[in-house]
């Protein structure tokens, strides 16, 4: 069932590419605004770039994830999942993974391009991309939980970012700082270990919490 759900997610994204690509396009367009708004000077942009990229990746990730269960809720397939005898946690994990593959992964790749345009040196670029690869799944999982809690609510679009942002602060701190450490030529190992630990924690706990949230919403 896991594989089938994953395929369904990817297929749905493939059929409606506009929706799936919006976060990536948002990411690219927003990052273009910073040289225009701040300064085109490479020496000033370089130290700011990793933090900027992390923040934009954050916002872009949030853009897509809040409606994760919306379409399924509207057409009734969420009900099918809830009624199915298979574990709901696994189904949610499949949906989250599918969502990350469709939106998170392109942003991680796009970040390399944007970093080049913001004059990030190559050795920092590796840390930046690795950090984003570890950090964006955590963000997707947090977003999965929040969208499970707010599915069916009218205010979901406003509510979701308010709920996700405070919870995801550690990811931003360790992610952005790992890139800064690389820029100062220091070891990034510690930040990556913490990020990986947080990812494992999120992988093991958040899908179950999201399953509980969906069931609560469904009972009402």
């Amino acid at each position, binding site marked *: 069932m896991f594989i089938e759900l994953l395929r369904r997610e990817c297929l749905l994204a493939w059929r409606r590419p506009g929706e799936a690509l919006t976060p990536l396009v948002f990411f690219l367009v927003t990052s273009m605004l910073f040289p225009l708004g701040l300064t085109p000077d490479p020496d000033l942009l370089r130290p700011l770039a990793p933090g900027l990229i992390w923040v934009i990746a954050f916002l872009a990730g949030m853009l897509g994830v809040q409606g994760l269960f919306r379409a399924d809720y509207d057409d009734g397939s969420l009900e099918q999942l809830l009624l199915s005898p298979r574990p709901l946690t696994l189904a949610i994990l499949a949906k989250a993974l599918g969502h990350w593959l469709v939106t998170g992964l392109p942003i991680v790749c796009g970040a390399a391009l944007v970093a080049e345009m913001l004059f990030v040196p190559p050795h920092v670029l590796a840390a930046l991309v690795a950090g984003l690869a570890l950090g964006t799944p955590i963000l997707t999982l947090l977003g999965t939980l929040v969208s499970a809690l707010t599915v069916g609510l009218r205010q979901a679009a406003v509510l979701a970012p*308010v709920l996700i942002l405070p919870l995801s602060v550690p990811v931003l701190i360790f992610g952005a700082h790992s890139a800064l450490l690389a820029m100062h030529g220091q070891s990034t190992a510690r930040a990556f270990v913490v990020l990986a630990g947080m990812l494992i924690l999120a992988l093991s706990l958040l899908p179950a*919490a999201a399953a509980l949230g969906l069931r609560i919403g469904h009972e009402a």
Partner: protein
Amino acid sequence: MAGRATPWLIGLTLVLMAAGLVGGLWLAPPDYQMGDGFRIIYIHVPSALLSMVVFAVMAVASAVGLIWRIRMAHAVTAAAAPIGAAFTFIALVTGALWGKPMWGTYWVWDARLTSELILLFLYFGYLALVHAFPDRRTGDQAGAILAIVGAVDLPIIHFSVQWWTTLHQGATLKLSGTPMPVSMLWPLLVMMLAFLCYFAWLLMVRLRAEILRREYRARWVEKI
């Protein structure tokens, strides 16, 4: 029970708060560096303590409510959340007022200030989520999940924010070897107790109102 406990809590709160304020504002000597400015600590530290205690209370009550399906526990969480948000806000404001003369600025991006601010946003998020549901019970349970996840996340937030170099002074209160003279210390401890009693008092009052609001159709409510 709440009705019987409330007068005691009011009395205890007022006595402790009076003792703490007299001790803190008159009896304690002025600090040799900060002068009388340090006295705001008697409001600031207890509020900051309570802001965290209240969230812990909420998380425990949420877990109890989710696991054993006790509706009363959700009422406790709902009643405690605004109080906790208020304490967090007080801690931030008093800290900012103290920071202006002492550090020369109202706000710095320091570890403890930042995590306190995030805590405030967590309270706001909880309140917004609970009130977004048209149905009380669903809102309670969704909020309970958020409170538990937030409580798991809070230590991580605190730790991660601490990773920055910090300007805030280290913990003044330690179990052994407090660097604070006794004349300054006892009013602080008394004020902490006073704030705890104050929270219990407020919680009782709010909980009563919350239960009445929830059970307004029940027969025993009609008798009151």
